[in-house]
């Protein structure tokens, strides 16, 4: 049982290594990838149950008690997001495999896709579980490097620009991250998070602010916080649907998670945290307005992604148990719904041959299944009841309304952003699903990996998407126990002590 928390990290790395070794057999690769992610889901579920029942699951790697060794910590927050993330990764993998079979035939092996996909999952898991600042950096590098590879794989004249934007901005954020780690070590001589949370307290408040803001910038870039978000809508939309879905679902939320983890554990702020309130407002509005200006479906979704990061930032800014609970709940919902929408976007493009909304039309009549698959996550993202988006937003709004005038005013911005989200999604519905059916746009590049403009879509692609819709619905149905748990998670985060005790208290064992 001691290895439990390490499995979500080590299994996929092992899987990736073996996937390269067996790269001549695509069947072996598929089985390897699916079993790895499947077992990760199981492990994550067990971790979540254990973390919720009996406190954070901590393992000291190598048997070295932290802060000497690296600790992996699965508390409620980490375990919940890990579970949702692995579920999404599994579903997206199913979609991708099915698409690859449809587009390539059954025999096309790849020495790139499966290993990289698994490495990415490993990086995500490690980021959630890491109890060590430097390991967090390493996990980000694992995750990001894998994402670079996935984004630039089989890149073409059209997509290379997006790849460059993404890689360059991410590299800057990585180097700033490393710089921040160096700064932290300079001031405290430790990189263990629990240890740090004690040592940072001893620093003068001014310097605590410096460090806190450094991490806000570092994670803000990767979480697409305005004004550090510009790279995202320029890069995500150009990747194949499963890749974009995976990125949109996981990467920004991992960064947001890292922001929550560091800010709550290391730098407790005022309640509310005014700077973050402003950043949340900017993120919500700039993202939502950006979405409204788009004609490209994937770009529109990307801007909505940015906008809804602002919702989570709002929860963080309130900086009390309810706010953090809301942010956690929102993150869990956001991971699912964004991945779903991008997968649906992929299905739409596959069917219509285009991402341009003004070249689509009449899909509700020609493809009712697609209409349903789009409508449910769209309503979820817009936060209309009784979806998961509504439940999460409700918690955020309650936290805001209960935290004074400033947060209440920002809650009004949340309302405005929700409205703009609905507006943008209505636009998609009206343009793509209603109106005259338009002729399918021919595949502009029949030789490339992606087949578009075809009515031939294998059912597992729909099934994987529907599976994600089901996850999202499950979040809504089980909102009771879930919100109770995120509530406890929020209290833990504010209290800080449970985490420290779980990591360092065990050292005396």
């Amino acid at each position, binding site marked *: 049982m*001691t*290895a439990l928390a*390490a499995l979500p990290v*080590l299994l996929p*790395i*092992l899987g*990736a*290594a*073996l*996937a*390269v*070794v067996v*790269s001549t057999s695509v069947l072996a690769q598929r089985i390897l990838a699916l079993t790895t992610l499947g077992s990760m889901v199981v492990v994550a579920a067990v971790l979540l149950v254990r973390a919720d029942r009996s406190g954070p699951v901590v*393992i*000291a*790697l*190598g*048997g070295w008690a932290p802060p000497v060794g690296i600790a992996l910590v699965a508390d409620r927050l980490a375990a919940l997001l890990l579970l949702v993330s692995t579920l999404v990764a599994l579903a997206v993998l199913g979609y991708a495999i099915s698409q690859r079979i449809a587009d390539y035939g059954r025999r096309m092996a790849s*020495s790139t896709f499966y*290993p990289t996909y698994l490495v990415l999952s490993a990086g995500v898991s490690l980021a959630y579980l890491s109890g060590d600042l430097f390991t967090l950096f390493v996990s980000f590098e694992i995750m990001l490097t894998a994402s670079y590879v996935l984004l630039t794989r089989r890149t073409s*004249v059209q997509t290379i620009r997006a790849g460059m934007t993404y890689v360059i901005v991410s590299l800057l954020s990585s180097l700033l991250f490393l710089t921040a780690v160096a700064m932290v070590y300079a001031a405290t001589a430790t990189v263990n998070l629990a240890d740090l949370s004690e040592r940072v307290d001893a620093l003068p408040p001014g310097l605590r602010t410096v460090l806190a803001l450094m991490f806000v910038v570092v994670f803000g870039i990767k979480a697409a916080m305005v004004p550090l978000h510009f790279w995202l809508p320029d890069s995500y939309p150009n990747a194949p649907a499963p890749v974009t879905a995976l990125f949109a679902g996981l990467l920004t939320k991992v960064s947001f998670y890292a922001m929550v983890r560091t800010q709550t554990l290391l730098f407790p702020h005022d309640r509310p945290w005014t700077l973050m309130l402003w950043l949340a407002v900017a993120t919500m509005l700039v993202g939502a307005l950006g979405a409204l200006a788009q004609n490209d479906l994937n770009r529109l979704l990307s801007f909505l992604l940015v906008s809804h990061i602002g919702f989570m930032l709002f929860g963080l800014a309130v900086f009390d148990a309810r706010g953090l609970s809301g942010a956690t709940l929102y993150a869990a919902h956001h991971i699912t719904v964004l991945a779903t929408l991008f997968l649906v976007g992929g299905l739409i493009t596959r069917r219509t041959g285009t991402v341009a909304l003004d070249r689509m039309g009449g899909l509700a009549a020609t493809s009712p299944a697609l209409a349903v698959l789009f409508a449910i996550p769209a309503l979820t993202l817009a936060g209309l009841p009784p979806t998961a988006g509504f439940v999460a937003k409700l918690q955020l709004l309650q936290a805001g309304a209960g935290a004074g005038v400033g947060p209440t005013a920002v809650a009004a911005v949340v309302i405005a952003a929700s409205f703009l989200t609905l507006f943008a999604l209505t636009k998609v519905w009206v343009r793509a699903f209603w109106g005259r059916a338009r002729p399918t746009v021919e595949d502009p590049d029949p030789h490339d990996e992606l087949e578009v403009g075809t009515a031939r879509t294998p059912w597992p692609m729909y099934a994987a998407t529907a599976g994600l819709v089901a996850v999202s619905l499950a979040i809504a149905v089980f909102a009771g126990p879930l919100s109770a748990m995120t509530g406890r998670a929020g209290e833990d985060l504010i209290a800080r002590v449970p985490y420290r005790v779980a990591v360092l208290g065990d050292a005396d064992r």
Partner: protein
Amino acid sequence: MNPLTSSPDGDAAAPQPGEREQTPFESWDRPRSPWLLPGRCRTPRRRTLLLEMVTRGLFPTILVFSIYLLCAGHYGPGGGFSAGLVAGLAFVLRYLAGGSTDPGALVPIRPPVLMGLGLAIAVGTALAPVVAGEPVLSSTKLAVPLPGSGELEVVTSVFLDVGVYLLIVGVVLDLLRALGSGIERDMRAAGEEA
């Protein structure tokens, strides 16, 4: 812009569809031939005899040195990384001397597979203690009886170093395959002098 390369969108100089890539790595499982022999080298104009001679002598020496670094890491500067990089540099040297026709014969195993094996060994080392009920990534000292007399004390974390070593060698070889042979292939395809 280089006039010899394609137009901005890369349309020009297209090889015919169906043309196979000329990377020797695809034939990695064919019988291997000796390396750096006359006749299997690049165009004579670009041969550097001195480099070839030096390489023939240095290559095994460097490899041995890298093994030393691997073993010495626990007690002085060195370790899997440095050792792997040193070994990798030995292959680089060979590549520089022999050109792109050669690296297919460098190792009897494809570089990605080498990388995969290295990584698998490293992760295996991390997971193996779990079977024995120990924490993940923990290491113990093993006493290995030597055939002659006495025992060799081995810290299990050495296996991690071995994994690292293999992986790094694989990475360097893969870089040679891609940035070395791969680019040369592209240059030939574009009609540039390789």
